Each structure stands twice: as C-alpha cells, then as structure tokens.
C-alpha cells in the first residue's frame, strides 16, 4: 500500500460517493441558499434553483452591527448582533481557560506519580458523561442564590470550562504520553524548572492535540443552549438562545432564520475545513483511549 497509486474503482462506487456527499452537505447548502432568498422566492415553487441571491436577510439579522445603514429593511433585529458578540466572548474565553487549565492537569496526570492520581483520573472519566440537563437545576440554584453570578457572562463561562475540562484532560493525556521523556529530562539537566519544561518543551510538541482540544471545546461552548438559556439575561444571551426564542413567533421568516442559522454554523464549518485532520485525530484519541 506504500506506493502512491490509487486503486481503480467501478462507476457504481463513484455514484455512491456522490450520493453520500449530497446527503452530507445537501441540508447545509439548502440552508445557505434559503438564507440568500427573499420570502417571495422561498414561497414560490419554481425558484428552488433559479433565484437572485441577496444579502437582505443577513442585513436584517446584523443590522445593528453593520458599519453602514441597510436600506429598505422591513424590521431590524437588534438582539442578534448583541448575541453574536456574547457568543464570541463566551466561547473564546472559555476555550482559552479550559485549554490552559486542562493542559496543566493532563500533564500532572501523565508525568507524575502522586497520591490521589487514580481518583482524579476516575473522576474526570465519570464527569465526562454528565449531561447539561442534569446541571440545569443545581447550576440555577447555586449561580442565582449562592454565587450570585447568574445573568453574567462569567457565570456561563465558568460552567462551560467545568463541563469541557474532563474531555480536554482526557484527550490531552493521550498526546502528552507521546512526548519523549528524554527531551524533558535533558531540559531539567540544563536547569529548567517544571513550569519552564511545561511551557517551553511540552506545549510546542503537543500543538496538534491543543488544536483538536480547542476545536471541541469551542464547538460545545459555541453551540450550547440549555445552560446559557437558564443563566443569561437580556444582555448576555448567546446566539442559540436567541434562535430558540425567535422560533416561538407565529409566522417564521425562513430567510432570516436561516441567515441566523448560517451565522451560527459558519465558525464550526471554518474550523472543520482548516483542521479536519486534528479533529479526526482528536476524535480517535478521545474514543479509543476513552
């Protein structure tokens, strides 16, 4: 298999491939094309494929964050621009925090023998399966009455970091195991402290693992609905919460709602194209080592 020649396949195989690609990305393309249509085109039977694309729906959704004044909007939806900002701040901050904290913990679990190591390992495995729905009641109670951080972005960030830590610790462990220990030892001999070894030797080597972990963390923080819904107020709502709230309207404007959906889907899609190799490695590390 080492020679780079490709096997010849029969035409049925390629037909199957095309069908599979169509099934995988078809719904996404449908969402994209609907988001570029006016309501007239969405309602019409004939313009499924032939229509004049317009960014009108995106202007409606983003009207208050655009640098120009959109012309001819039926209505402006100022909640979405704010939600987009909240989502970005919350997802990015919690990803960075989870990565730093999780990486340190994973390093400790792999490189040191110490009391309580197995307990910590078991706890991270067990907490990995806790669903957001189970956290809904206690998080509401604790965040509201004890910590009094409900309605703040920090409150949402804190729970996202906690939810993602077990998974990040788990997959980073399998990357850190592969770092040659001789490298660390020789740095030690040259007089580097444990923190220097960690930041200057270990972190650069496990970059692919960090990329995978950050994408998984970002994805969850960016997509999460239930806890953000319980913990946010008018000013700190994230995009998923805004979308679900707008679904209660009686006459859904499908063009606008698909534009919001596209905006929520774009960051994960970009990550997938930029780092699919890391994502797949991360998935396999997370499952096989799990």
């Amino acid at each position, binding site marked *: *298999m080492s020679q780079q*020649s490709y*096997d010849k396949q029969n035409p049925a*195989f390629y037909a199957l*491939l095309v069908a*599979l*690609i169509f*099934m*995988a990305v078809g*719904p996404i393309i*449908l*969402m994209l094309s609907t988001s570029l249509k006016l309501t007239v085109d969405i309602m019409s039977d004939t313009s499924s494929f032939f229509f004049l694309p317009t960014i009108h729906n995106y202007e409606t959704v983003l009207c208050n964050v655009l640098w120009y004044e959109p012309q001819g909007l039926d209505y402006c939806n100022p909640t979405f621009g704010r939600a987009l900002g909240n989502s970005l701040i919350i997802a990015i901050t919690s990803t960075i925090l989870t990565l*730093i904290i*999780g990486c*340190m*913990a994973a390093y*400790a679990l792999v490189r*040191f023998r*110490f009391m309580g190591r197995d307990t*910590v390992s*078991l706890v991270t495995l*067990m*907490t990995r*399966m806790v*669903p*957001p*729905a*189970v956290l809904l*009641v*206690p998080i*509401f*109670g*604790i965040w509201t*009455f004890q910590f009094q951080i409900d309605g703040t972005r920090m409150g949402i960030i*804190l*729970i996202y*970091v*906690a939810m993602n*830590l077990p998974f990040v610790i788990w997959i980073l462990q399998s990357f850190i195991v592969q770092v040659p220990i001789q490298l660390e030892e020789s740095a030690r001999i040259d007089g580097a402290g*444990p923190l220097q070894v960690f930041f200057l030797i270990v972190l650069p080597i496990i970059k692919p693992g960090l990329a995978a972990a950050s994408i998984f963390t970002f994805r969850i923080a960016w*997509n999460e*609905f*239930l806890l953000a819904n319980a913990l946010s107020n008018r000013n700190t709502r994230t995009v*998923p919460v805004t*979308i*679900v709230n707008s679904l209660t309207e009686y006459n859904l404007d*499908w063009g606008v709602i698909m534009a919001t*959906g596209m905006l*929520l*889907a774009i960051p994960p*899609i970009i990550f*997938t*194209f930029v780092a*699919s190799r890391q*994502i*797949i490695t991360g*998935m396999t590390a997370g*499952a*096989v080592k*799990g």
Partner: protein
Amino acid sequence: MNTSLANRLTPYMFLAPAAAILLVALLYPLGYVFYAGFLNWNPSQRIGQAEFVGLRNYINLFHDESFRESFFVTLRFSAIVVSLEMFIGVGLAFLLDRNIRGMSALRTLFILPMMISPIVVGLMWRYMYHPTVGFFNRTLKSLGFEPMPWLLDGDWAFASVIIADVWQWVPFIFILSLAALQTLPQSVMEAARIDGANGWQSILYIKLPLMMPVLVITFLLRLIDSFKVLEVILVLTNGGPGLSTEVMALRIMRTATEFRELGVAAAMSNILLMMLLFLTVAMFLYNKVTEMRAMRLKNIAAEEA
C-alpha cells in the same frame, strides 16, 4: 529537603486550578442536585427555604404517566438511533476503506454534520420538513405524490427526529470505524488473503473481531450521548405532537422552567444521571478488560519470541 518537598508539590500545583473548578462547578452541583431531589422547591425560594419531602418526588415520578412516557421515548430513541448509526456508519467505513484520490477531502465533508450546532441541525430539518415550502413535500409534490405529515403526526414526528439525529451522528461512527479499519495490521490482512479468504470472510472473521474494542467504545460513547439529546428535538417538535418526542432532557427542562418544580426536575435529573452512570461504568470496565487482555497477549507474544 526543601527541593524534594517542592518536587512533591509540583503535581498538585499543576492540578490545582482544574481541581478547584471541577469541585466548585461540577462536583458540588452534582451533590446539590442529589439533595434537591428530596425537596419541594420552586425557583423563587432559596434552597434552604424549601420543604424536605424525602422520597416523595421519586414516588410521584413513578406514578407520573408523562414522565414514564419521556423515559420510554428516550429509551426507544436511543435504541433506534444508535443501532441505525452503528449499522450505517460501520457499513460505510467498510465500503469506503479504499485507496482513492481525495479521501481526506471526503472525510472533511463527512464530518461537517457533527460539527454543526444541534440547534442549527434542528432548524435545517424543520425547514426541510415544512408542510408546504419544505424540501421533502416539494419533491413529493413535483413527483406527483401526496405530501407527508412529517412533524404533525406522532409516529412521523418520531421518525423525523430520528432521521435528523442519524444525519448528524453517522459521521462519528464512520470516522472512528474507518480509523480502526485503517490501523489494522497489514500482515494479518495479507495472511488472510493468502489463505484464500474472500471479502466477506475477511470482514466477518478477521476485520470485525479485530475492530471490536473500538466499536464497543464507539457504541457506548454514542449511547451515552444519545441519552442527552435535547436541542434538535426542541427545535424540531418541542416534544410534540402530544408527548411523542418528549425525551427526558426536555421533560427536565420543562419541569424546571415551565412548571417551576425544581425538586421534581432534580429527581428526574438524578434518574437520568443513574442511567448514564451505569453506561459509563460499563465502558470503564470494558476498557479495563480489553487493556488486560492486550497485556496478556503481549506477554504471551514476548514469551514465544
């Protein structure tokens, strides 16, 4: 002595931030929800003011028709989606385990569905299931068929929700099984070919058994995740029509936010948590067993060499 103490403290220093956050924001809430299950508690009270009712929430839940329904909806949903996804995902892995041009680009396209927010997956499919402007009924109409009541009828809605979930999660099984397939030892495959095994025989008697550890873990991971399903269903059907698609997570959310019965919602959460704990322990034990078996095989191989 000072340095050895510092050395001994190093691991704890690295662990401290993670331990602090997990304690405060995960383990403490889990203890809290366990306790809250014994309370008659509504969102306007502090937890200390809530009345302690012992096991009453659990006993009431046992007799609660709609909670039982959500329990069975969840079980049915998980059983169907996970078996469908395993079947299709593993099957696709075998079909596409070939040396073809552009395989990595293909894999990128295939993992797109699982990267997209469940809320957006719900939106896309809700649009496609739309009675008049949706893709499915439009296609049926242009082919001369009657439109289908996708989300309007209990059984249809359940099937529709399953289709959306399968669309999103088949890639997960596919990617993991493909990775398992492609890391199978080439020498074993060669030996099987020389011994005259045909395609089906090598799949059934060699590839599948060798992939089994990965497949079991994939199955358990997916099963655990399918018990947590919420957003796709919330957007698609909001649990309806009736209670036909109301899974446990949705029931918990309803009970807490609409009915404002935090104690009851906590009791439901604990039941869901117990089910998941059971699955996780199963996964953990299976892992230990396969690890031990691999070690023993390695030892045998070492002795023979």
